[in-house]
């Protein structure tokens, strides 16, 4: 069974600084997808960034980028130039399309605070 681990329950960053959120996962599959979701205090989870396991190139979306290390089963999220609006819970999630159709497997989340 796949598992997703986020070892940092809480993180804090100064506005305009860079922060990295960690995520590791365990799977025997070779073809899968990884996601980072953001859940602001308003509670709606929003997709931040996604990565296909077969792509070596790290995904980037504006200030958000990932460091995907397939051999190490690591998928960290880097937020550059942090803004107050980045404060939220961040969830790492795993998806194996070849297996379950809708079963995103989430980590426990990391609560990110941004200090002005």
């Amino acid at each position: 069974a796949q598992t997703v681990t986020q070892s940092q329950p809480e993180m804090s960053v100064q506005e305009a600084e860079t922060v990295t959120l960690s995520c590791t996962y365990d799977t025997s599959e070779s073809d899968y997808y990884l996601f980072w979701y953001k859940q602001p205090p308003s509670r709606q989870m929003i997709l931040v960034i996604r990565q296909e396991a077969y792509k070596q190139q790290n995904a980037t979306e504006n200030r958000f980028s990932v460091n995907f290390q397939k051999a190490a089963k690591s998928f960290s999220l880097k937020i550059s130039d942090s803004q107050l609006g980045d404060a939220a819970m961040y969830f790492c999630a795993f998806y194996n399309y070849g297996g379950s159709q809708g079963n995103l497997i989430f980590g426990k989340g990391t609560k990110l605070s941004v200090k002005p």
Partner: protein
Amino acid sequence: EPEVTQTPSHQVTQMGQEVILRCVPISNHLYFYWYRQILGQKVEFLVSFYNNEISEKSEIFDDQFSVERPDGSNFTLKIRSTKLEDSAMYFCASSRLGHLYNSPLHFGNGTRLTVT
């Protein structure tokens, strides 16, 4: 931008009572899901629904749970006889195509269910 909407935002019920959580997925989406998040725990998959039937369910989704799409817009989760351990945030999500990488999940704001 279209959103998944959930009602109510907070539901309090007594143990043993039936509750129905309601969701309106995005109108052109074909796949619907329920997830739940017990306080401090991971977001967990409950069930996926496509073409008016359950396509997959987790071990959590036992006989006390049911889902329905009673009309062309609503998607409901019914818990027949609530238990204290059903207290959680319940998230509805929808996806246009079902392949969660190409067609990511859109989540609602959640319904916080409190069973007393």
